[in-house]
């Protein structure tokens, strides 16, 4: 799918820690293999048991909107034609305590409410530095 903020908009700078999230086409969250603690953003140490046996696991790809704000001021030139747009915090199903950020696509931005159920969809892009394919997680409303 084309990108919510335009195909020319900024892409994440890939790191070892965020590559699974931004390239796999799944909502990948870091878990501790010793104690099953989930954490986002990922880190080098488990924040629960302080172990280092950490691995990414795919979650079901659904979640709930914890907060949603309408952005009116275009902070980047490429956003001039895109405001207002909606930014959300989503709690990820299957990864207790983990919230991620994103946009909710496919609906008027002002229609996104706290508590709404959402499902992941993915935007196609390329990393300008390496040409690597990106699948940037986004969210769409789930109709009950």
């Amino acid at each position, binding site marked *: 799918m084309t990108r919510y903020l335009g195909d020319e*908009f900024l892409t994440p700078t890939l790191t070892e820690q965020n590559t699974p999230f931004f390239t796999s086409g799944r909502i990948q969250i870091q878990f501790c293999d010793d104690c099953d603690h989930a954490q986002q953003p990922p880190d080098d140490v488990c924040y629960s048991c302080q172990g280092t046996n950490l691995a990414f696991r795919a979650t079901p790809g659904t979640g709930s909107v*914890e907060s949603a704000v309408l952005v009116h001021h275009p902070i*980047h030139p490429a956003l001039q034609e895109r405001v207002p747009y909606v*930014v959300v915090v989503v709690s990820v199903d299957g990864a207790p305590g*983990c919230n991620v950020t994103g946009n909710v696509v496919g609906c008027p931005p002002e229609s996104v409410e706290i508590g709404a159920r959402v499902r992941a969809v993915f935007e196609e892009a390329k990393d300008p530095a390496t040409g690597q394919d990106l699948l940037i997680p986004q969210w769409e409303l789930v109709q009950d």
Partner: protein
Amino acid sequence: MHGQAVVVGVGESEYYKHGRSPDTEFQLACTAIKNAAEDAGLELRQLDGLISYMDDRNSPLRIAAALGFDELSWSATPWAGGGNNSSATLQFADAAVCGGYANYVVGFRSLAQGQFYRLGAGTGVASGGGPPGLGWGLPYGLMTPAQECALHTKRWMHDHGVSQEALANISLACYANAQLNPRAVRYGQALTREDYHASRWIVEPFHLFDCCQENDGAAALIVTTPERAKDLPGKAVPILATAQGLGPEIGANAFQERWFPGMYYGNVGRMIWERAGVKPEDIDVLQLYENFTGPVVMALCEMGYCEPEEVEAFTGDGALEGPNARLPFNTSGGNLAEAYIHGLEMVVEAVRQSRGDSTCQVDDVNLSLAVGGPGYAPGSAVLFGPAS
């Protein structure tokens, strides 16, 4: 109760709209420190410690050389964040002079946002700075502190039934107090509730007037021991307590469920009240850093001033406006309306209140509190007693 170190001098440059300073950032820093030394009755060569925060670009080595310090024996900067550490400069200075490591320690902050980048432009965040949570927001157009604080504020208002008027109350108080302060960049620009509501949205629930300015300028304070202060001509303002650090509301990652929504200031309040043996209602005048109005109302609640459900009434009906307010608050106009020198100008104002020379002077100030920027950890605060 500490009561050991004292502030003996404060200094500022002129404050400008961002990009308007004719001086470089380094010149502004030197001006503020020279003014603070003159205020204290000290020779520049006697200064021997320098503390700043927020990755200040003005190296202590360069300042000590330029200003002719005999010796630089203490320099420090707290880790992480931004204006959250404004009051921490005074804690580090207190530690240095009470520990005997330095005699006259300067806390300073200088910025020329024309010469360098503007914090609010999101540049630092886009290049990987800022809280860890923000880097993940880049492809979603989530790039600024305003947006991040808005996400917290929106959920908090939703949970507690807080309306836009609570945010307006903060902005109106700052603008009203700035009208008494000729140094304020917004002096002569009164704001009405209608103006507030009519102003454009930046990111809901923040209007333009919910957001701090972007300014050029510098501020500095000089800390020493009470013994050394006795030999100086001016007033000495005691540091009764300071707080800096992380609590259970740790805020390591901006949107983690454990800490969302929150401003991470419960621990700052707890430390200040316990260390000074006082309660929020004992404070005579409060300077509470406004990056945005939402974090201010949230921090007021986290620090124990009122419950979230009460914050609209607590801040309403002019409760924060003027020297005779129910809670005299941001009496110079604060970051919103005096100048945004990343909150250090508010610490200077807290000292002025203790000395009795504010443009919005509260009667009989016994306890004057300055709180650093909520929303980013580690938080900080400093409590001053009456000048002697």
